[in-house]
Each structure stands twice: as C-alpha cells, then as structure tokens.
C-alpha cells in the first residue's frame, strides 16, 4: 500500500455538498472543457498545407473549401462550417504545421 502524502481537498459533489477527500491522479489532471469555436479553424492532425483557396477578406459560406491539409498521405479538404469573412490566415502553401495550430480565423 502506498504512503499518502497528499493534502485533503474540498470536493463538491452533485448536490453541492463539500467533502474533504483526496483526488485521484486522473481527476488531478482533468482539463477544463473548451467549447469549440467554428470561427477559429485549428488543425486536428499535423501535416502540410498543399492548397489555400482563400485569402484575408474572402467571403465564405457553409461548405466553402478553405484549404487542403495533407497528412498521413491523405489530402484533407477543410471546409468552412459557418458563414463569414476571413479575418486572418495564419498559414501559407507548403507550410508544415503541428497538431492544434490555428490555421484560419473568421469573423
């Protein structure tokens, strides 16, 4: 059995009661939920930008092709899921990006 050296923490349960308890490793590394924002388009996989169809100021509709992100030998066509105007393009053709990079911002 392990030696406990952690501190007791206040822990709120579903009915709002507060208990003194230890946290588990998984709960300790819990991340706050982040709402996805359709106006900030991030890469969900690493890869290279092989085509860029829009530029800053372009008007886009739902389904307008934005760029092609080539990853794992697949060409992934990224389309807009909202209507709007391109505010920022953070990538350029030929660029290699990692996972979670903001590629395009709309307004």
């Amino acid at each position: 059995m392990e030696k406990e050296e952690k501190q007791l923490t206040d822990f709120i349960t579903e009915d709002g009661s507060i208990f003194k308890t230890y946290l588990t490793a998984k709960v300790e590394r819990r991340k706050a939920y982040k709402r996805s924002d359709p106006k900030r388009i991030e890469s969900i996989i690493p890869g290279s930008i092989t085509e860029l169809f829009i530029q800053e100021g372009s008007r886009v509709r739902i389904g307008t092709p934005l760029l092609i992100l080539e990853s794992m030998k697949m060409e992934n066509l990224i389309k807009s899921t909202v209507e709007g105007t391109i505010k920022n393009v953070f990538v350029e053709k030929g660029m290699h990006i990692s996972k979670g990079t903001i590629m395009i911002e709309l307004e």
Partner: protein
Amino acid sequence: MEKEISKMQERASAIKLGGGEAAIKKQNDLGKLTARQRIDALLDKDSFFEYDLFAKHEVHNFGMDKKNLPSDGVVTGTGTINGKPVCIFSQDFTVMGGSLGLTHARKIAKIMDYALKMKMPCIGINDSGGARIQEGVDAQAGYGEVFYRNAISSGVIPQISVILGPCAGGAAYSPALTDFVFVVENISKMFITGPAVIESVLGEKVSQEELGGARTHAEISGNAHFYALSEKECFEQIKTLLSYIPSSNDAKKEKQESFAPCFKGKIAEIIPNDPKQPYDVREVIKAVTDRSEFFEVHELFAKNIVVGFGRIEGETVGFVANQPLYLAGVLDCDAADKSAKFIRYCDAFNIPIVTLEDTPGCLPGIDQEHAGVIRHGAKLLYAYSEATVPKITIILRKAYGGAYVAMNSRHLGADFVFAWPCAEIAVMGPEGAANIIFGKEIKEAEDQEALRQAKIQEYKEKFANPYVAAEKGYVDAIIEPQETRKTLAYALRLSENKSELRPNKKHGLTPF
C-alpha cells in the same frame, strides 16, 4: 539406450539455453529473468512439466529456413503453485525477441486448450517484440487463435496475464481479454501504437514509460490490475491471488480454517463523527476479515472505489466498497468499469459479494458525461443485477440518489441489506434536497441562511437516516457496527445453498 538418453539430454539442454548465454546475460542485466527462470520462480519447486520443447517453425522465407529458434521462442507446460495445478506459457525474449509465429502461437493455444479441458488456471507471461514479420499472415492467425481461446475460456477458468517486457500492438489484446493483468515497474510496456508511430503521425513526443509503462496502466488506463516493483514481488502477488480464487467455475468450494480479525478496536471509531470527513474504507474491510487480511485488486486505478478479496470464516469473499478517502467515494466511469468487472468475475467463479456503501452520488462534469458515464454506470447496474452469487450490502454512511440504487440495493436483487445506525439513505444530500424542496420559501425568507439551515436540519432528521428505508423493507436490519463480521458470517452461512434462476437466453447485452 544409454546413448539415446544422453543424446536426448544433450539436445534438450541445448534448446533450454534459448537464445544462448550472451542473450540470457543481456536479459538478466536488464533486471529481467528469462522465460525459464520465471517459471521456476513462480511454480512450486520441481513441479514444472514442459510440453513441446522440441517445437520448430516451418518457415522458409527471408532466410528463416537457416534460423534455429529453440522451442520457437515460448516455453509451455504445467505445474503447481502452492499445490494447485496450473497451465503456464512464458515467452522467451532471448529467442528472436520472443516474436510470435505460428508454431509459437500453436504451442500457446495447445496449453490453453489443455487448461480449459482440465479446468485449471492459465498463466501467460508476456515478453515479446510482437508478430514475427517473416511469417506474414501466419503470425496474425496465431494471435487470432490465442484471442479466440481467451474469449472461450473466459468465466470457465481463471486467466492471468503477466506483462514482463514489451507487449505491443495486437499482442496487447490477449491480456485485455483475460481476468487479471500483472505489471512490473520499468519492465512492462503495453501499447497498441508505440511512441515512434505516435511521434511520426501526430508529432507528439512521449516516452515508452509514460505511454504504456506499468504505472500508467495500473493508475491511468486501468489495463493492469496488479502493480509490483520487481518480478519477485509480482510472483508473490500471483501466488496470493491464486490462494483466493477457485481453479474453475465448477470447482468445489475450498474453505480454509477460520481466523478472527487482528483488528481489536471499535469499528464505529473508524468512521469520523463529521460525515464530511474521509476515512479509509479498507480499514472497515480489515476489521471484518479473517486475520484482517485484504487482497486488493486494481489498487491504483479509480481509487474512489475499492475491490478485492478477503475471507470470512475461511470463505473467500469479494469486497466492493466506496472509498470516501478518494473523491469522497463518488461513482464515475472508471469506478463503474472497475467494480463491474470485479463483480462479474466473482459471479462467474461463485464468490459471494459483500458491498460496503458510502457514496454521495456520481462525479459531476462535462468530461464525465462526454466519456459516457451513463453507459459506464450502466455496467455496474447490470453486473449487480445479473449476479446470482450471494449478494450482501452494508450501508455504512451515505447512500444517495442513483448511487444508492447502483450499489447492490435490494431493488437490484441484493439478498441481504444491512445498515449502520449512522446510514443516510436518501434521494440526495440534505443541502441539495433542502434547496430544491424549499427553494421558494428560502428565497422569500427574511433570513435566508437561517431558514436554509433549519430546512437542511429538518430534512436530515426526516430522511437522512436508515429508518425510512427500513420501514419499507428496503433495508432488512439496522445493525451495530461491532456486529458487522458476525452478521456477514451469518448471511454467508445462510446463503450457502443459494440458487437463483434466470430466464433462458443465449447471453445478455452488457452495456459497453
């Protein structure tokens, strides 16, 4: 004849050297025993009887015809552990990295078939680089044959996986299909895709240890049930586990001699007076078991629930207990998975289940809901309802909301439900209930806080006790904490011949 015998002995001892002395030294220098040393360390002295020592592969491609692979990289056989017969296979990393080819897999399959037919536990020691690529689809076929036998033997004989080296890709699924997985710090490595693949595909850097080391699987993924710091400690754990569990699902019950608990204090004193303060529920378990012994399963994973084996009057009992020391003992996805698997294990092998309940409900959170806490929680409900072994519940303190129902309540078919006098069986905690029921009144009151406290007190007195449930027969008896062991022993004796029939069906659809 003498000549023939010595010839055979020569051949056998050459094969027994596996990959040779240099490879053995390399393995030992890594802090690892070899396949044969492990078998000797785990089994009773001189009890090992080896099968297929002379097995040979039949591959001709890629220069394999010139390769001599002693025993095809796996040692298989039978033996005893504390006198109990077991089947065992142990992959030999010194022979082509313990890689699995068709002959290797068929040796494993053969010993698994034997274990199933002869109704004895099957122990697999995994230490393999993976599929033997030179054998192509035959290697995949080999894995498939092992998986199939894992599934067919499930619930008939205990299946134990010991990860003492790499166990990557498809190979990792066999342990996942077995009942108990043992890992050792710095030695065990399990993953489906390794760090190199993850880095090249996703650009994410992670070490083998972080990704799929012993601690990761024992604490985070839950793939491992037992964690040890050395192979020696791991083998001791396996021996202890085997002392608790029967050799098959129709083995006759082995009752050992009954011993009084070593705990001599007052059980009630383990529980703090303030219901919001934690305590270690394992102390309650140890206060009622023979010699105060408790063998915990999944000790590091989902610590908010405790599961494991103990004995009461010599009989093995499976304990499931909420743990107020961690997360106040709430139920979450992992706790439900952990306890559901344990309950199903106990049910399959005729081990009575004792549930000690003290839970304020479920873990709230977006991550929990998105992880599917509904379907995970459903596993627990299903496992308790489905189980036909004697099922005894003792409500120690809190039993709120859905968690009250889930923790082997009368409504899910508990045979006995007892409560301590400090039990609070209610639809929710007093704070939450007062806010909902008297919300309007409290809002309109001049001194809101005073009224809230008064209403909380009123609710506590009316509902946060065991008497309402006892009036309705949901609780059979309210017992003094000091009588817990006596009551459990009585209930176990009473249910010795329990038989409960279920409607005939092919199988149920367990939530996944």
